[in-house]
């Protein structure tokens, strides 16, 4: 009994060091994806028709390709020209992929803001850009929160894919322990619990934000 507990503790201590890596990969990917998503959604709704087409193309192509392929392209191809560590190749690839999905999320949210809001903003003398910034986006971001929260948990789970280029995140470490100790149950059990905890905390936090900033209509 004591032995099992010891094993569990060692296993846990080793794997939990990957927790921070998983969180970092997810945070970078979500931030990159958010930036791409917001900018592209604005371009898609308000931009020049040529720009709209370009954005649609990006979104269609990226969503058609498995994320792992994008990771490999960045890690094996792009990193020959630009100095990219496995961490950054993986996190950026996840960010580009998520950016395509977030573009669709924010596009829908921007289009869901009533057209009268833009008109009223222009009527008090705001420029188009000011109206987008101060009136449309703050409302669109609130409308987007439920869908965005869902995307956040998907990215969190997709962050395991960077394992393939050797980033020592939770799953990678679990696999290492399992190979060394021949106790896959313990190793992957710990990984499972860590992911479960991360996902639960994330969804709870997002739900709190959602309640806090809900638009009253």
């Amino acid at each position: 009994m004591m032995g099992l507990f010891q094993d569990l503790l060692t296993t846990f201590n080793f794997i939990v060091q990957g927790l921070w890596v998983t969180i970092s990969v997810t945070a970078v990917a979500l931030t990159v994806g958010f930036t791409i998503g917001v900018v592209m959604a604005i371009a898609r709704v308000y931009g020049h028709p040529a720009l709209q087409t370009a954005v649609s193309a990006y979104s269609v192509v990226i969503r058609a390709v498995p994320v792992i392929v994008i990771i490999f392209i960045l890690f094996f191809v792009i990193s020959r020209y630009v100095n990219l560590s496995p961490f950054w190749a993986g996190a950026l690839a996840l960010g580009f992929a998520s950016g395509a999905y977030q573009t669709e999320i924010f596009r829908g949210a921007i289009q869901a803001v009533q057209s009268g809001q833009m008109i009223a903003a222009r009527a008090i003398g705001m420029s188009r850009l000011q109206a987008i910034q101060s009136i449309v986006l703050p409302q669109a971001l609130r409308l987007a929160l439920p869908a965005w929260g869902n995307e956040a948990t998907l990215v969190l789970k997709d962050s395991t894919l960077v394992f393939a280029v050797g980033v020592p995140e939770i799953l990678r470490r679990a696999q290492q322990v399992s190979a060394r100790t021949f106790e896959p149950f313990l190793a992957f059990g710990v990984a499972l619990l860590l992911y479960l905890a991360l996902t639960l905390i994330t969804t709870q936090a997002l739900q709190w934000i959602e309640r806090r900033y809900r638009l009253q209509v």
Partner: protein
Amino acid sequence: MTSPILRIEDVHKSYGSLHVLKGVSLTVQPREVVVLVGPSGSGKSTLLRCINLLNPPTKGRIWLEDQEITAPGVNQDRVRQRIGMVFQEFNLFTHLTALGNVMIGLIKVRKMRKNEARDLAMFELERVGLADRAHYYPAQLSGGQKQRVAIARALGMDPHVMLFDEPTSALDPELTGEVLAVMQKLAGEGMTMIVVSHEMGFARQVANRVVFMEGGVVVEEGTPQHMFEQPTHERTRAFLRNIMQ
């Protein structure tokens, strides 16, 4: 005779093949209250949106004070700042409180500091009798209160002319009075106003001039007394008779 504050000359507006305004001319003097009436589809709202360049005219010219605002190269945002507009559907910014609705233009457009903006916004809310609702969100306000906040928001920009696009049409009958009272007070303070409305009582009491539009043109205009008691045109008479019933 002072110079007109607004001069509209042969304004046309088309949407594709739909010819909504077919040559409207109208001159408004400072402090004047003009009420636009006419059947739906006659082009009243379109005319208002042409005046503040939300939908610029396809042909014709408009002067605001001594600037031709339809001239190429005019900064339209600047022009809109000088022309307040109140909408039928209020269009309050749903993510901001009543105070925030009035403040945002002061901060973003008039570039005021936050403290200054808050003081002026409170003053404008007081003007429409809603200082006690400053921290309510639009969803927590009645229709009449929303419209009064919308008026305060427009007033905050210190407009030279105010346009009202059917300001009471979306309100329950018992709520129109508070909005009309605010508008009447504004008129009393000397605000130049162009009002699209079916409130004939308001037109009679407050308007200096009533303009009857139909089919994208001005059919007849005159003092309320003339328009309500002895209009020259049969169409004016028919419309007003209809609406009074």
